[in-house]
């Protein structure tokens, strides 16, 4: 079993231009990483995980290996060079993709479920929400999400919705 030093456990290992090189291929991100001991490591596939997905989606992004162990943390995506930032943003967009609701066509309560008919960026969608109060979540003053029975998540901008749409979800806000 590897003996882990206390320092490694409690200090944050940040990604810097010097210690990391990201490459992208066919929707997968690879990383060459130099640890604090100067050891070069090759990760053919890394995963990204936002630490604060709601508040600061572009800051504190963990880079994980295949087994979900953290390699290092990106302090801020904006601080990376343009090409790398683009790569990271594409990967984050893939992973954190949610349907964006533009218009709510109808919400019907029926036997403890609510049936939603909405217009998203990807076209019209119908889904069912169980226990609507619990699955409707207001993230901040503007954004709210609702999760359906299959675990799909839908996001909406509260200021971006029109009056009739707002009226339909008023109760859950």
């Amino acid at each position, binding site marked *: 079993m590897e003996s882990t030093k206390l320092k490694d456990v409690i200090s944050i290992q940040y990604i810097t231009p010097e210690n990391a090189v990201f490459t992208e291929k*066919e929707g997968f991100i690879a990383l060459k990483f130099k640890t604090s001991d100067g050891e070069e490591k090759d990760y053919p596939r890394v995963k990204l995980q936002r630490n604060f997905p709601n508040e600061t989606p572009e800051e504190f992004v963990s880079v994980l290996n295949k087994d979900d162990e953290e390699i290092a943390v990106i302090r801020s995506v904006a601080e990376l060079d343009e090409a790398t930032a683009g790569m990271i943003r594409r990967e984050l967009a*893939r992973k*954190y*993709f949610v*349907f964006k609701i533009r218009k709510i066509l109808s919400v019907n309560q029926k036997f403890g479920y609510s049936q939603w008919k909405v217009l998203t960026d990807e076209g019209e969608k119908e889904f069912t929400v169980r226990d609507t*109060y619990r699955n409707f979540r207001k993230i901040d003053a503007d954004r709210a999400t609702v999760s*359906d029975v299959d675990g*799909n998540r*839908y996001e909406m901008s509260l200021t971006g919705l029109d009056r009739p749409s707002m009226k339909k979800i008023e109760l859950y806000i």
Partner: protein
Amino acid sequence: MIKEVNAVIEVSKMGSELVSALAEHKLSCEDVAVFAALDMDLDRSRADVYLVLTEKELLVLTGQTSSSGKPGKKFTKKFNETDCRVYDASEIKDLAIEEYVSSARLICSYKGDDTVLAAMTKTALRDARIFVKYAAPKLEGKEEEIDEDDFRDDRFCPKCGRRYPDPDRKICPHCMEKSKLYRRLFVFAKDYRRHMALVLFALALTAAMAVAAPYVSTEFFYDRVLSNSSNPWYGRIVTAALLVLLLKFGSLAVGSFSGVISARVTAKVTYQLKKTIFSAIERLSMSFFSARQTGGLMNQINNDSNEIYWFFMDGAPYFIKNVVQIVAALVIMFIMNVPLALCALVVVPLFALTIRALFRRMNSLHARTYRSSRALNSALSDALTGFRVVKAFSREKEETERFDRQSKRLARDSRSVTFFNNTAFPVATVIMYLSNIIVWGVGGWMAVTGAFGMTYGRLLAFIAYSNLMNEPMFMIVDMAYWFSGCTNGLQRLFEIADAEPDVRETAEPETLGGMKGSVKFDNVVFSYEKGKKVIDGVSFEVGAGRSLGIVGKSGAGKSTLANLLMRLYDVDEGAIFIDGVDVKKLSFDELRRNVGIVSQETYLFVGSIRDNIRYACPEATDEDVVKAAKLAGAHDFIVKLPDGYDTMIGFGYKDLSGGERQRVSIARAILLDPRILILDEATAAMDTATERKIGEAVNELSRDRTVIMIAHRLSTLRDVDSLIVIDEGKLVESGTHEELIRSKGKYFDLYKLQLEALKNIGITEE
């Protein structure tokens, strides 16, 4: 080999659109080994995507399905292919699904490169998982045994073919027969048939008297008693007053009478309903409780049965009475004067619509108030439960502000409810008066001109009847809302009553006749959730009277092994034997009388310590109880309590420490005197000295019984005969302590780590 899989994937399930799409690629159904339908293309737009695995290739067909014709009649679907990717099956490795926040993708290593094969929303995830389950071994040239469950398409309503809104609850809101629910409820009430008939009769009588009253107090009084001296009733004012009084009292008496009876019947029926539900719940398997939160479940049952109670107590009787009243009033109005009745009716739709809108608004206001009151309550309980933390970090001011904010919100919402009540309903009343004014105007003209035989008294009676018709509207309009709440509650309750336990007792159990206590796990596979194996091919044996330690990281599946042996869940594959008999063939009674468990989560019921210890065998003598407590190391602390064994514990009573609770639960298990005793982290909350003492007691116990100990502190397991190491659901090592140390594997690592930790604080293992 392909044939076998084909037997399960019926051609009909593939859909004609896919069959014809495959024909264009010169493939027939027989070529297909595994297929799945997904719902998203790689750009995340909605699309129909088919994964088709043949002997040689994997096809990913992307396109849109269009349908023509009406369902049932000449309904055809056509798949318009926009893209087809073909992969060489022999080059595909490591097929896997990567789950994202709201979507997932199917990836693999193709010709050595990581490749994305397809994307999907979480709706299609189950199908994709099944695809991987069968396709992955197929790609390696192996054959996965077919689990019929995977292909039983039970996500769609068999009646209308629509997808169930909730895959875990097989209820189709479109096909649910409400009448069936109510018929079932009346089965509970069938013993009270005579009572119910009486209630109905009383209600009809009340309505009849309510309808008669205005006639006597208006038309009869004005046109006969006060005017028209040739009338035999002329001048008999006292008689008329008495008649009115009699009617009022009569309807009051009949009303109270029916109230009393229906209160009795309804209370009894809801009581029976609750009883049925509760016994149904106790019968159900563990998995039911994990799928639904237990606290929420009990709450739900209470709320639902209350809703049903009030519906039948308040809702239904008044509804019946009001309907009778409206119909009777209408009939009388039409008999009295047809044109005027029509006039009075003009306003009714307007009135009904207004009330409906008002009620909707009121319900949403109420819902909002309810929500803020819930938020306030949780803020309050948060701050009070976490009082120590609030103090320690000196956050009193912030907590007060938080409370204040919620409190203000509630005040604001309650105010708007009151404001609404005080403004909106007078508006509705005004609309109701509108109909009165019309009747006054038109009727007044009729009375003055004497048209349609209108008299003054009759006009007054007429107005009284139109009010009689309008008033119940307030209630009837809200009825639909009430009714749906009740139906919903009934549905949920019957659903629980109908739920089938997954772990079923065999009809003809084998009896062991004196269990010896040998345990054998044979290639056991188990998953709580489909596709995520928690236990993967575990086999081991414990001889009767021997002891076994199970070691592993938290979440490795150790406790699951205990749950499986107890048959709280059933194994998916493989089998578990006690004395050579499959546990599935033993009766629950025999199994659970002989297998005792002390688990991590100790639960003590409200009651005395003595009652808690003899929970499983209430007939035990006090001597047995004390003996068991002594063995469990609980006796010493119990006798120190002022009330000794009679000390009340559990929710709301004396709070025992974690270690004390564990000792009481060990005593409970010891008293049962099981042949097989499972200790699942049973000593984790105790200090080392107490643990050692209990260790000795366990040694004492294990002399004549089988003991299985689960622990992550290795020192707990120092005396067991043999050990197994579980890691991620797999058995990785087994043997005695010495053997495992020698082999320098996972156990050795763990041992070294814990030894080092002890060394750090200056302790060395002897």
